[in-house]
């Protein structure tokens, strides 16, 4: 019997392995499988790539569309699936190789990490609104549990805050799905999209607002993102890197996928989202200036970059959308690298506060160097990947003749330079009196080195991946093709 290689494995494999976890404990396979699963998924993504580039892979389980469970792997969702697998691989490799805290290496963490990957993959791939809700809750519940995993006061507080705000978001999202079903009698996204225009305008607005609140909370857009720094500070830095690198990206993708698919004319909604993105970016960057805890500073910086991506995707032109998708990938790599350095520094000096890290660059030269590399990539200095994607976005705006986002993005980059150099200065402070550093496993630098290598590679040779992102943007924006692919031509 041969198992066909289809998109369902991106969800099924981590789910199956997670629920069989007692077996892996018994055979001492927990850590190899934790790293092996995302590695396998990444491999599968690359095996499927040639097929995806010729046309979207549709998979329907049970009945014919619009009934049945429906998964869709196209050029846009492929980018996200590959990114989720890659980010999962780097983070789990770090957990394994750095000999991380025991609570990150036991069975519970194994189950939640794999469920997080399964949930994110499912959200990105699914073509059905109710399945989207289920995957959203799977990813959400595993994220709540992961942030509370350390079980001390700050971790439990982070977990509780995340759970409360996350459940509220899920209720709002469910409400909008219920209204859509009552109005159209459909849950399949393409079938809903075909009838969405027929819904009365006030109801469309209500559905849109409920969905915006639900997904806006999850995707950390202003004004729904007040909880983010608390959660990132209370969770282990590796987990914060995963939330920022993979969970938020999946939600952002879902938000824009729905906007571009459901609305025949996404101009107005896009403009609102651009406004939200710009506000998110500016407020987060300014607040980041005065953060004294590295994890909080990185959380605000992450919010700023998410605002930038929202700004770029909301514009809805091919160049900015492709640039936005590229920036998503870059930001995941960069934030993961920065949060992993934060994990190393936190492990070494027991604190992530600015005052306690003075002169840390001498005790941990490699970690500090990687932090500098990551910081430069966030700011967008050549030849790092942040430069390539920001340039692409700016060029897209300039070619369309819209200049206010260009000014805002450059201003945000200036503020970023301000607070990252403040941290770099402290890390290399010659007068810092440092406590003795706790040892860190050398192998922990391997996943960080891989992330750094990719950042440099994508910065030096962005033409390697140009086509992928342009195809992704075309798929994301081409509503007609998406509809006829699912519903058949002529509908």
């Amino acid at each position, binding site marked *: 019997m041969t198992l066909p290689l289809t998109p369902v494995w991106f969800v099924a494999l981590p789910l199956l392995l997670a629920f069989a976890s007692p077996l892996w404990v018994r055979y001492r396979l927990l850590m190899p499988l934790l790293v092996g699963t995302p590695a396998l998924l990444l491999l599968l993504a690359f095996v499927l790539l040639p097929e995806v580039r010729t046309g979207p892979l549709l998979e329907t389980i049970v009945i014919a569309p619009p009934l049945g469970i429906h998964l869709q792997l196209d050029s846009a969702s492929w980018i996200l699936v590959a990114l989720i697998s890659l980010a999962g691989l780097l983070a789990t490799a770090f957990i394994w190789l750095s000999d991380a805290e025991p609570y990150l290496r036991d069975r519970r963490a194994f189950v939640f990490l794999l469920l997080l990957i399964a949930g994110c993959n499912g959200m990105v791939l699914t073509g059905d609104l109710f399945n989207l809700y*289920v995957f959203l809750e799977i990813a959400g519940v595993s994220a709540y549990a992961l942030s509370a995993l350390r079980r001390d006061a700050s971790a439990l507080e982070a977990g509780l*805050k995340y759970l*409360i705000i996350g459940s509220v978001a899920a*209720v709002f999202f469910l*409400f909008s799905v219920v209204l859509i*079903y009552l109005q159209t009698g459909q849950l399949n996204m393409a079938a809903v999209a075909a009838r969405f225009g027929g819904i009365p305008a006030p109801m469309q607005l209500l559905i849109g607002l409920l969905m915006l609140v639900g997904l806006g909370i999850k995707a950390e857009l202003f004004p729904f993102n007040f909880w983010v720094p*608390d959660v990132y*500070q*209370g969770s282990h830095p590796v987990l914060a890197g995963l939330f920022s690198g993979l969970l938020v990206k999946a939600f952002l993708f879902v938000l824009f996928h729905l906007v571009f698919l459901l609305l025949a004319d996404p101009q107005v909604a896009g403009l609102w989202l651009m406004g939200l993105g710009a506000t998110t970016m500016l407020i987060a960057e300014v607040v980041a200036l005065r953060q*004294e805890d590295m994890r909080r500073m990185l959380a605000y910086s992450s919010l700023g970059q998410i605002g930038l991506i929202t700004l770029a995707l909301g514009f809805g032109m091919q160049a900015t959308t492709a640039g936005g998708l590229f920036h998503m990938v870059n930001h995941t790599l960069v934030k993961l690298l920065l949060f992993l350095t934060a994990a190393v520094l936190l492990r070494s000096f027991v604190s992530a506060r600015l005052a306690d890290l003075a002169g840390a660059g001498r005790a941990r030269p490699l970690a500090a160097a990687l932090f500098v590399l990551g910081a430069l990539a966030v700011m967008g200095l050549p030849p790092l990947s942040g430069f390539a994607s920001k340039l692409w976005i700016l060029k897209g705006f300039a070619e369309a003749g819209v200049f206010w986002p260009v000014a805002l993005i450059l201003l945000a980059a200036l503020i970023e330079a301000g607070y990252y150099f403040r941290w770099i200065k402290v890390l290399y402070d010659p007068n810092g009196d440092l406590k003795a550093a706790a040892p860190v496993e050398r192998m922990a630098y391997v996943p960080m080195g891989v992330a750094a290598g990719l950042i440099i590679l994508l910065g030096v040779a962005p033409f390697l991946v140009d086509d992928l992102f342009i195809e992704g943007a075309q798929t994301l924006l081409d509503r007609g093709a998406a509809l006829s692919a699912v519903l058949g031509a002529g509908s």
Partner: protein
Amino acid sequence: MLAFLDDPKILHGIYVLGTLTLFFIGLYGLLAKRHLLKVLISIAVMELSVYLLFVGLATSPGETAPILSDGLTEFAGMADPVPQALTLTAIVIGLAVLALGVSLAVQYHRLTGKADIARMTELKEL
């Protein structure tokens, strides 16, 4: 006397008013109450109102359960089963999240003696 309830419009109107009231009671509790358990219960109330709205508006008076039994041989005049199946799934998910939330709240209370959201200040701006 209650025959006017057989009019789907009136019945659905009552459902909408009732569930929206419930939704806003939940929202009020979420925003105004400070005890962790009360906040979690408020979220559960909001969820429940959405389930009620879904099941209520998806059926009309006179429709039967979509089950072939008792001499019924064809699907005519039956309620749409999809909303009920979805609501069941959503109830299970909601219960799981609520259980996780309550267990976290209990652990937090055991550890710190606090159950007040406004006093959760371990993580804050320095």
